[in-house]
């Protein structure tokens, strides 16, 4: 899946027009632009809204037409060098303006120079947006993304490490076999925690890791911790950022179970619904203590930022405090390794061997960039 996406990582190419985040940004920016124009054109303040609404009659069809063309052409557009791609987008903008004008002109004859005005507006918008996306691509360049992901490397609480070692020590004399298993679990867990976790991994691997982690916590907490697994219908092959769930489970145990003098349940619910992978974690929560809240925020923000780096606007993380429980809900787009390595995307110009599948490429582009940069 990697090392084939960008031949020249120093040259930020065009944005991916199939990415929800990109499309949203374009929609918002162009409509804001139209609003600014309405402010400039309206004779009175009260007329601004009317002028703006009137302009949308042209702006929306024009914008949607351009976006539709770019969406269709995206797989090979993004492969072009920046200048050629920008030129093509300008051409698309001019032609789309012409088409929209033709359609509107048949209904009511438009004054002279209207077409030129539209096209100039369109080209200015294209220019500004391309400049913005280029800046953004630089900001998210391989080196910087890499550094940010590295900085966001999830850290396990030292508290957990030492308590676990202590728990294993307590078993050495009485139950050496269990102590062995526990040590192997710990080794596995720390192997993952210490490696460079910058590439997406299958969900089943993350779940396995979570199981090992909870196994260790169970050793320590015994009956006080019950885990309710609801993963029968999970998409095992979905690609997720490594350590997406484990830090959140650690939070659930630390804030939900440990301060509780009665047994408590942590529930994990994973399922796929309309192309979106949902992960819902729930734990008991008592609002009174409230002393180590900051640690919780840290882990949440860490996972949230990593989700944003990997999936941009297509992933979300929400947390909710109910009366006596705490819930975290993660949504990420369903992407798989198989879809990533699929070949034979129909392309217009000479395709590169093993070119990535267009549908899933955006999710992994950045991660793949990181890998390419590392060699």
């Amino acid at each position, binding site marked *: 899946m990697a090392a084939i996406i960008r031949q020249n990582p120093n040259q930020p190419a065009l944005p991916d027009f199939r990415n929800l985040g990109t499309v949203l940004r374009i929609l918002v920016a162009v409509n804001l632009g139209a609003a600014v124009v309405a402010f400039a054109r309206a004779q009175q303040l009260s007329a601004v809204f009317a002028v703006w609404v009137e302009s949308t009659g042209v702006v929306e069809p024009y914008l949607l037409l351009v976006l539709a063309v770019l969406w269709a052409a995206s797989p090979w557009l993004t492969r072009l060098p920046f200048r050629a791609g920008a030129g093509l987008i300008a051409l698309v903008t001019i032609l789309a303006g012409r088409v929209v004008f033709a359609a509107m002109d048949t209904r009511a004859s438009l004054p002279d120079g209207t077409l030129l005005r539209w096209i100039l507006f369109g080209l200015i918008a294209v220019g500004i947006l391309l400049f913005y996306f280029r800046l953004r691509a630089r900001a998210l360049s391989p080196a910087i993304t890499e550094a940010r992901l590295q900085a966001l490397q999830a850290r396990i609480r030292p508290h957990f490490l030492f308590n676990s070692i202590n728990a294993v020590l*307590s078993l050495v004399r009485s139950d050496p076999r269990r102590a062995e298993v526990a040590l192997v679990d710990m080794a596995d867990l720390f192997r993952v925690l210490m490696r460079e976790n910058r590439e997406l991994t299958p969900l089943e691997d993350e779940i396995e890791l979570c199981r090992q982690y909870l196994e260790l916590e169970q*050793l320590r907490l015994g009956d006080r911790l019950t885990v309710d697994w609801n993963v029968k219908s999970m998409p095992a092959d979905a690609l997720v950022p490594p350590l997406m769930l484990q830090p959140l489970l650690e939070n659930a145990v630390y804030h939900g179970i440990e301060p509780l003098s009665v047994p408590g349940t942590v529930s994990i619910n994973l399922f796929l619904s309309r192309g979106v992978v949902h992960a819902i974690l729930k734990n008991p929560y008592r609002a009174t203590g409230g002393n180590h809240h900051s640690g919780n925020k840290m882990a949440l923000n860490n996972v949230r930022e990593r989700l944003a780096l990997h999936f941009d606007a297509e992933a979300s993380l929400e947390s909710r405090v109910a009366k006596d429980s705490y819930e975290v809900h993660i949504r990420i787009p369903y992407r798989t390794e198989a879809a990533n390595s699929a070949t034979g995307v129909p392309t217009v110009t000479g395709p590169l061997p093993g070119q990535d599948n267009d549908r899933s490429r955006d999710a992994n582009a950045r991660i793949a960039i990181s890998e390419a940069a590392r060699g």
Partner: protein
Amino acid sequence: MAEAPLRVLIVDDEAPARRRLRDLLDDCASALPLLVIGEAQHGREALELLQSAPADLVLTDIHMPDMDGVELARHLLKLAHPPVVIFTTAFHEHAVHAFEVNAVDYLMKPIRVQRLLSALQKVPRLRPVSAEKLAQLPAMARRFLSVTERSRVVLVPVEDVVYLKAELKYITIRTSQREYLLEESLTKLESEFGTRFVRVHRNCLAARDHIRGFERRVNDDGDAHWEVLLAGVPETLPVSRRQQFVVRDTGRETAA
């Protein structure tokens, strides 16, 4: 002293940690006569055990649900013969720093048997850490207030307290059931529990959760003042002139 065995109580919420400590104490037993009088899962259980079976030393975890180790140590001081307390902790950077600053003994988990042994050997020369020092340690607000009655230590859950009233040498703790006498300072209690209590009078803290409302009263001289109405108790408390803003602030909160 040398011939009487050292009586030790183990307090930890995690079973493996208790077992480990017991193993280590067994190892020390050959070098130093000692007797493990029991194990407790939390502070309340420990206090209960110690009322009937006194100990010389309590080895307690710091981080525990319900009542943490530091709070336990504060309540143990009320016993007729307070034991020496040595804290055990897996990791807690800030806590550990404060323990060092205040010269409060602690052992790092996992505990080395040599460390434990030298700590045990010191015990006969140690005195229990004072309440002032314990109050310096970073801990959550206490979950219980402890009072001594007929040489037993009684725990009063803080959430049951309706109001605290300073009277001469003592503070009266009022719950919906009854009253207790406490020897502490009202100002310190106020700062320890923060927003749980609100000062309605120079000598009185009322529990926010128990305030039902306020009532305006006019006495015979024609002076008007506010009285706090409380849930669970029949009596009301006067609000002093200086604390009148409480009526407005608290009133708004209950309305919201």
